[in-house]
């Protein structure tokens, strides 16, 4: 207790230096936690986006489909198979998909597209795709009419040309992009709706009709209500051709996908490709998505599924994303490592100064009877206290900020948001609570302090009292 008291008082004899050292530890901990929270949050968000909204955690596929994605590598799907799959406790529902490729054509514009046959209702278990049907389109014509009406504030009319040809599925986002107050939407929205509103509809199983990605719609120069033709190769070399009404434009953040995706009901797709009752993949919607549960379900299913099919899990389907995230994770850790090394040198600098300027005092203490080990432990306590001060401050201040960020993700607006979307980044920064990481901080800082203690402890243990008293 006496040693702790002495260490605590020693800490404050050079208040400014202690504060600077503790502050450097604080900033290291704070930024490490903040950056890590953002990084883990973005991974989690990406996982959720990709896995939970698109691939699902496990799929049933025709054996060859993953390596060669042609309609010929589809498998037969029937009620009996469905019942067999649903008999597993972890499988809550199944989400059918039939994917293939075709040429999409409207007027004189034609483009190779990915055709995705889906069950819109079941798809909503995974993603909110039905909510992504665009409601507004700021076409050049619409912008000209809005400007001519002179019913919007100057700021908004100035912003309008920046968003030419952009689709919106969210009214608030439209208002924000134009710099309009969302709370006054009742006065602005009717003006915008009058000239830029597009009426999208839902697609339904059993009813022909398609949704297009917004970039594809721009390319084909089509609007909801127009007609387009899909033409390609069907099942086992048949000719696939069909004419469909465009029910809606889907606002998809990733520009490369939105430029080549066509959704239609899966039964309509089966008819188009002459692949009656066939699917290319069946997403198994699971109750428990932990690795263990997925492995158990996969194992159980492998004995129950037809020979022509196989079970594929999210890790195999998203191996590229996972590798990218792992690489990014390592680079993040590396950056934090550099941050810590810089801070460690700061602490070592403090320790060196402290040891040098107190050499005489150390000599006196040993002369009057303090054991060197005890003296070293007091110096150790001092450094530990500085470390603790910094770590605690870093944790205490970062917790509310991170928790706020968890509940209020940073959503970018306006031009910056569109620029990010053009590079296929969602304009959103998501935080995650990083519980285990707090302990990790304490461990790393303790390690830094221990390393920085090597020098003073060596100096104290080798102290020659007579020389120290002359210092």
């Amino acid at each position: 207790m006496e040693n702790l008291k002495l260490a605590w008082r020693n800490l404050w004899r050079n208040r400014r230096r202690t504060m600077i050292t503790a502050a450097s530890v604080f900033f290291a901990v704070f930024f490490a936690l903040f950056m890590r929270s953002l990084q883990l949050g973005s991974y989690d968000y990406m996982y959720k986006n990709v896995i939970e909204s698109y691939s699902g955690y496990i799929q049933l596929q025709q054996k060859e489909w993953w390596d060669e994605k042609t309609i010929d590598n589809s498998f037969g799907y029937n009620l009996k198979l469905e019942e067999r799959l649903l008999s597993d406790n972890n499988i809550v529902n199944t989400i059918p998909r039939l994917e293939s490729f075709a040429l999409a054509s409207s007027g004189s514009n034609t483009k190779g597209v990915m055709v995705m046959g889906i069950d819109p209702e079941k798809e909503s278990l995974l993603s909110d795709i039905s909510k992504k049907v665009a409601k507004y389109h700021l076409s050049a014509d619409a912008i000209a009419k809005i400007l001519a009406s002179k019913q919007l504030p100057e700021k908004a009319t100035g912003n309008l040309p920046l968003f030419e040809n952009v689709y919106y599925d969210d009214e608030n986002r439209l208002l924000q992009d134009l710099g309009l107050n969302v709370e006054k939407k009742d006065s602005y929205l009717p003006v915008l709706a009058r000239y830029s509103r597009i009426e999208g509809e839902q697609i339904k199983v059993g009813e022909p009709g398609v949704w297009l990605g917004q970039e594809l719609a721009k390319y084909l120069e089509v609007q909801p209500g127009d007609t387009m033709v899909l033409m390609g190769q069907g099942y086992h070399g048949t000719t696939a051709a069909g004419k469909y009404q465009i029910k809606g434009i889907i606002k998809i953040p990733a520009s490369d996908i939105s430029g080549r995706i066509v959704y239609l009901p899966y039964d309509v797709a089966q008819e188009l490709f002459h692949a009656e009752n066939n699917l290319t993949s069946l997403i198994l919607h699971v109750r428990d998505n932990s690795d263990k549960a997925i492995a158990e379900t996969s194992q159980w299913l492998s004995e129950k599924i037809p020979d022509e099919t196989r079970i594929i899990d999210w890790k195999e389907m998203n191996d590229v994303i996972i590798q990218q995230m792992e690489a990014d994770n390592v680079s993040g850790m590396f950056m934090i490592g550099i941050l810590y090394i810089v801070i460690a040198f700061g602490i070592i600098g403090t320790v060196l100064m402290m040891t040098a300027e107190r050499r005489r005092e150390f000599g006196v203490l040993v002369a009057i009877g303090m054991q060197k080990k005890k003296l070293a432990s007091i110096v150790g306590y001092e450094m530990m206290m500085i470390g603790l001060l910094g770590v605690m401050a870093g944790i205490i201040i970062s917790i509310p900020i991170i928790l706020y960020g968890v509940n209020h993700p940073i959503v970018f607006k306006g031009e910056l948001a569109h620029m990010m979307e053009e590079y296929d980044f969602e304009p959103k920064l998501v935080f995650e609570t990083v519980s285990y990481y707090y302990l990790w901080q304490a461990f790393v800082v303790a390690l830094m302090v221990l390393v920085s203690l090597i020098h003073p402890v060596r100096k104290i243990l080798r102290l020659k009292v007579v020389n120290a008293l002359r210092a």
Partner: protein
Amino acid sequence: MKVLELKNAHKIYNSSEIQVHAVNGVDLTFEEGEFAAIVGPSGSGKTTLLNMIGGLDHPTKGLILVENTDLSKLKPSKLIDFRMRNIGFVFQSYNLIPVLTAAENVEFIMNLQKKPKKERQKRTEDLLNAVGLGDRINSRPSKLSGGQQQRVAVARALASKPKFILADEPTANLDSKSTETLLQIMEELNREEKITFIFSTHDARVVKRARRVVTLEDGKILSDEISKN
């Protein structure tokens, strides 16, 4: 009773080419209750001799015996422990612990000795009263004058009830009034506590008050006189 004995003590420093005989065959004995001064010009070996007596430095040759314990035979940690229990130090620049109050500085060694709290507090109070600082027990060294700090240092040196106290030029940084007060206090404590005081000094005022004066020159004893004080 014999407290301290030096037998043919030598201290030789080896520089790159020449050997320096800082202490050269010193034989000395100090009895309990002595109030002795070691004097001599700069470089005569006073501080080296004091360091060896205090177990801070080892003789190159010869013996330093404190109540028949040969200091050079003690292991480093045992020697530190021995110093704590048997030797008090008063330094020229006071060397109090700046973050502790006067009382805490005095109590410090008793803390190291693990003495009971009540005993520590009582002795601290007695000693600070004895050195005339009963009203400054909670002052930190930075709030005390040089003379007051040196008085706290004397109280600290006495706290562990040592066999003897070594004071290396204790009045060098003090004005005449503070020197007089300090010497008076040390004399009183020497008489009351029967503790041996050994000073190294240049100060004529200290020499005048000493009851024994050992004069060193070139590391050798030039004279060893008992004063009539």
